[in-house]
């Protein structure tokens, strides 16, 4: 219908405005008649278009985006598009993936997403403050984690400045999350760069299918106060949603080393209080029977601790602010399911580090993405997805240093991708995905040209290919085998590519910190085998997996380069460099069950061992920063209005490199155990009160190379209307 409408309009307009043939002398009347005819034609066509449009708008229409809730009710299990871009039941998805449901989130008792995700085997959740987290997958733990792409309803919330996710600054109400989809393994072929080792897609409730109001208020230790609210309204015309919320708290007041420089002028003791405010508004409109339009606007700002991987995990404070706007169309057509989507993220980041809080810098970033894709079935056993994407990102920086630079890095990407799913038989399927990215880069700002890199170095092009291939075999409805290969691409961060700063040390010498536009993307490849079995006698599912992963062109933090002369003074250059390779292997075993009596459990063990090349070990030391063993055990019980849930978690030791301002030093963190729990009581159809806590076993727990975390206890009241 869209095609018909647009082609009719296009024809009418072209007909009306096509230049008239040259009028011959004495033929003015004929020309006037021809013009009048064309004006009449145009008027009639415009009238027809308006009439058709009004008629379409007046029809009772049905939204065409995926109704996760209806599909989950139908198939008895969550449905996802995160594995291949096409809808699939989670048990049949050709990837090692976990879906956290809204029930799982509620029972976790957590009011932040990383705490919920810490229950998934294979993920490493590193905490460096009350609301500061980094989430790694299959090892490679580090601050500002670049390997795990994070999206909310398909929109990137991963920040390209350091290549990381600011978990304290997401514009989402945790009570509005339908499911969190976590894919472990390279997923760049579907999601693009930085889904190099995995992807987390947070799916919220679609207002076209779910209405109601949910409000939560939480009070707790560390003077924590949060309030979150979401209102959804749906009708035959679609739906609208409004969410808003915020957090205030005190930072943990645990002992810190001299180089934990999260000090600001206002809080010289290193306890800048974390804050968060967000608001988001979205709408889904059923424009025609099979055509749906959607729009979304978000605003979020936060203050939280920050650990900087470009500077050997130095610690500071970040003040982030982000706006986004998105629009899209979904059309269930005779040519398949066609969707197009465009969004703009504008992010402002202010970093305060280096101990005094007086020294820092700020960045402004824009990310614009436009995507169009078509998914369709060929015959009865092939599903095809083709997609085109354009991506623009830029980075501006301002320093609070003595010599000011004004870099403006601009990068453009064009991508082509495709997915082919072949249902070979009832028991066997073969899925393949491939993506080609082409990047052009330039420096549009003002940089020093007497250092290591100049404008010419920025004017270059890069290309990269990502791929996934998986064979699944299900000999029975209870057994599933998977074997797969993935190739992911991890782009250098904007700061690694485009930073520019010259610091004058009293006129004696300079420090010249530069972005390196010549960095190669890190390529992450993996091989994995998985087996899962539904054990009805235990009301459980057993999942096992093994993987081997290898990374090439790993980028180190800013390292000393050659001494250059700038303005007649010697300057020690510093820039990020590709420093070699690393590989890792490991596996997971998980038994997850839910008995009709109301008892549920989830026991898992995961192992990962990373081996770095010599240079990687010297400058990054992934093999030391990755805990090898994780043990998790969750037990819950529901009876009537009561819910009881508890979890225990044991993690082995790590050695992480950290910047002590003068030297890089390894910081050892011993193995630790932590206990969490929640008791929930639903005292009416609308209201639930819950008492929950994390790190309950001791007053403070050293969970990483950053300051220890404190015990937290929260009381929350949730209303649903």
């Amino acid at each position, binding site marked *: 219908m869209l095609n018909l409408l647009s082609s009719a309009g296009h024809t009418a307009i072209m007909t009306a405005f096509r230049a008239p043939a040259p009028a011959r002398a004495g033929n003015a009347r004929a020309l006037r008649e021809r013009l009048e005819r064309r004006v009449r034609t145009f008027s009639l066509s415009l009238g027809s278009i308006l009439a058709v449009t009004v008629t379409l708008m007046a029809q009772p229409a049905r939204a065409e985006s995926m109704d996760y809730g*209806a*599909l989950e009710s139908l198939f*008895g299990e969550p449905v996802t598009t995160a594995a291949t871009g096409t*809808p699939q039941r989670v048990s049949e998805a050709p990837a090692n993936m976990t879906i956290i449901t809204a029930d799982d989130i509620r029972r976790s008792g957590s009011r932040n997403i990383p705490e919920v995700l810490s229950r998934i085997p294979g993920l490493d959740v590193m905490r460096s403050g009350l609301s500061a987290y980094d989430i790694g997958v299959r090892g490679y733990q580090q601050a500002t984690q670049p390997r795990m792409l994070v999206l909310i309803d398909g929109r990137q919330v991963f920040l390209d400045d350091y290549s990381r996710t600011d978990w304290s600054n997401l514009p989402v109400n945790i009570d509005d999350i339908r499911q969190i989809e976590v894919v472990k393994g390279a997923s760049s072929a579907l999601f693009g760069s930085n889904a190099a080792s995995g992807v987390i897609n947070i799916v919220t409730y679609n207002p076209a299918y779910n209405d109601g109001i949910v409000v939560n208020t939480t009070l707790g230790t560390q003077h924590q106060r949060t309030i979150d609210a979401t209102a959804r309204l749906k009708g035959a015309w679609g739906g609208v949603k409004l969410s808003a919320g915020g957090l205030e708290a005190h930072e943990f007041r645990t002992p810190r080393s001299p180089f934990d420089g999260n000090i600001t002028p206002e809080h010289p003791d290193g306890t800048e209080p974390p804050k968060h405010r967000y608001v988001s508004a979205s709408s889904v409109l059923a424009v025609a029977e*099979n055509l749906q339009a959607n729009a979304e606007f978000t605003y979020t700002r936060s203050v939280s601790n920050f650990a900087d991987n470009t500077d050997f995990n130095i610690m500071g404070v970040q003040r982030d602010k982000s706006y986004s706007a998105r629009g899209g169309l979904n059309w269930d057509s005779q040519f398949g399911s066609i969707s197009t989507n465009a969004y703009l993220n504008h992010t402002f980041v202010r970093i305060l580090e280096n101990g005094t809080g007086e020294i820092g810098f700020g960045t402004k970033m824009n990310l614009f993405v436009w995507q169009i894709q078509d998914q369709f*079935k060929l015959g009865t056993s092939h599903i095809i997805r083709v997609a085109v994407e354009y991506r623009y990102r830029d980075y501006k920086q301002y320093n609070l240093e003595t010599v000011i630079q004004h870099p403006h890095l601009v990068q453009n990407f064009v991508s082509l991708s495709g997915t082919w799913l072949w249902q070979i038989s009832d028991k066997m399927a073969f899925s393949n995905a491939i993506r080609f990215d082409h990047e052009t880069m330039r420096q549009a700002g003002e940089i020093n040209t007497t250092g290591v890199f100049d404008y010419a170095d920025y004017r270059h092009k890069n290309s990269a290919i990502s791929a996934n291939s998986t064979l699944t075999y299900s000999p029975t*409805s209870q057994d599933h085998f998977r074997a797969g290969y993935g190739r992911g691409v991890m782009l250098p961060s904007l700061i690694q590519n485009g930073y520019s700063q010259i610091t004058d040390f009293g006129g004696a010498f300079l420090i010249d910190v530069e972005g390196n536009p010549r960095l190669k993307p890190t390529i992450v490849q993996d091989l994995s085998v998985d087996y899962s079995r*539904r054990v009805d006698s235990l009301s459980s599912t057993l999942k096992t997996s093994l993987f081997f992963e290898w990374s090439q062109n790993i980028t180190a933090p800013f390292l000393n380069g050659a001494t250059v002369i700038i303005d007649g003074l010697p300057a020690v250059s510093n820039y990020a460099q590709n420093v070699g390779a690393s590989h890792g292997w490991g596996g997971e075993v998980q038994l997850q069950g839910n008995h009709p009596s109301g008892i549920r459990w989830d026991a898992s063990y995961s192992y990962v061992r990373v081996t770095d090349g010599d240079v990687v070990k010297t400058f990054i030391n992934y093999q030391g920063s990755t805990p090898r063993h994780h043990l998790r055990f969750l037990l819950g019980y529901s009876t009537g209005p009561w819910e009881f849930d508890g979890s225990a978690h044991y993690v082995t030791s790590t050695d992480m490199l950290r910047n002590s301002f003068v030297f890089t030093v390894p910081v050892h963190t011993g193995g630790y155990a932590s206990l969490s729990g929640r008791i929930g009581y639903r005292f009416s159809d609308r209201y639930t009160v819950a008492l929950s806590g994390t790190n309950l076993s001791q007053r403070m727990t050293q969970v990483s190379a950053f300051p220890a975390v404190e015990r937290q206890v929260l009381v929350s009241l949730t209303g649903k209307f």
Partner: protein
Amino acid sequence: MFGSRFSWLCAASILAGTVTAQLASAQMTPNNVLAGARSLSFLQPALSGSVTAAIVYQPGNGASEAEAQAIEHALGNGLVIGSLTLKPKKVSADALAGLAGAKVAFVTRAASDRQVASAAAQRSIITISSDPACAQAGLCVVSISSGPKVQISVSKAACKASNVKFGAAFLMLVKEI
């Protein structure tokens, strides 16, 4: 001797169990009825409001009548799925004129034949069965089996005959025949 007899006994038990399970799985269970009704929410255009759901049975066939009874029981006074309410109406395979007014038909195993399929197709009725062979043969639009895992088959031929269309996302999750 004992070992041999025991082996035969085991084999016979497994065979009997398998046959019983196959027969049981072909009967329309309450879960099948629910899954069948839920699959209707993916029709284009969507069904809404109060809709008559015929239950087609073979008179004189005890199994078919029992299955029809079970379906009627599962639908109750009207099964509500979103904005759709399915009202049951039993229709004998001998009197298919009773399909008039229905938009959906649950077809019992013994009643699924070409005559029923043709009568339903003429009236653009969506036919639902728990027998996978029904969709396989193009006699039903949808076949549902719900144990231990919900499996849905959709017959392209039956869809075309009844002029029925499902959404693309739904079709990517089911087995099309």
